[in-house]
């Protein structure tokens, strides 16, 4: 599985990528939506893990753009909201997306990654 991590907090994505690598998951990271859109021109990913609030292009907007370029790509959002419920209320995509509230336990993230890829397997 190839994973793209996008968050404007460099320390967060670089460390998370390192931890995923220990678990045999190849993860590339970038710190802006613009950099993600540039990277996707030359690289393929199965899954993108996106911060919701990023400068200029938000995670939700980035997802829409990435989906156009890579329709098979799957997504998980990381949010700094107080709870998952807050995030649900605050987005038009409520109920459709997978999201986790920061700070995230690696076990929860891996579980969510399996879940989202399983959904793809089910053809949803």
């Amino acid at each position, binding site marked *: 599985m190839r994973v793209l991590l996008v968050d404007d907090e460099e*320390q967060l994505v670089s460390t998370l990528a390192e931890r995923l690598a220990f678990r045999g998951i190849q993860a590339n990271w970038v710190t802006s939506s613009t950099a993600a859109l540039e990277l996707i021109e030359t690289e393929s990913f199965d899954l993108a893990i996106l911060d919701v609030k990023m400068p200029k292009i938000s995670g939700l907007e980035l997802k829409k753009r990435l989906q156009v370029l890579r329709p098979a790509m799957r997504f998980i959002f990381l949010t700094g909201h107080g709870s998952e419920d807050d995030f649900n209320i605050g987005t038009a995509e409520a109920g459709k997306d997978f999201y986790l509230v920061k*700070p995230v336990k690696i076990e929860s993230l891996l579980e969510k990654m399996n879940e989202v890829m399983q959904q793809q397997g089910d053809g949803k």
Partner: protein
Amino acid sequence: MSDYQESIGACGLHCFGSISASVSHELKNALAIINENAGLLEDLSFMAEKGLPLDPAKLKSIAANIGKQIQRADGIIRNMNRFAHSTDDTVKRIDLGETMALTVALSSRLAAMKCVTLIFKPPTQTIYVTTHLFYLENLIWLYIKEILERTDTEKEITLTLRAQQEGAAVIFSPVDVPVIDGRAIDLLRYLKATQSANSQHRELLIMLPVDMTAC
């Protein structure tokens, strides 16, 4: 309660809510980084137990990262605490430079979301004013917010505080479109302040009197 009083009351709540939300997001990010670094230590310990050698330089780097985020979170909380205490006194004599610096710091994430850096240029001498502190912070924050919303190309917005004969001037630049938000107008009126523009220098000025509470 008059419409005007309701307006500044609602504006105060909006400002307090927005700053609280921004602060909590920033704290969440600092905690998330600490969490990942702590997790990385666990991963490395687990691998050391399996026989992989531990690199002391790596451990030092992780400890430094955690320390940096703790300092960051402490700074955020200190600013939030000062802001929260600005409601303690209805009227207060304050150091305007300190208040400006705090409000700019509290607005930095808002600016970062627009890829803009806020630069505060303090005055050469301390300027003391008597004011409704919380509403003065509201006013400055609201101007920063409105200016950021109108900015598409600027990478930096400078806020200069300058002593004037009868008070002080807060100068925002570069700004092309004057702020005409109704809430800002109400706050200006409440604080006996005025707004003017210098289109030639692309400046927006707020003139603050020494006593913003005088009838």
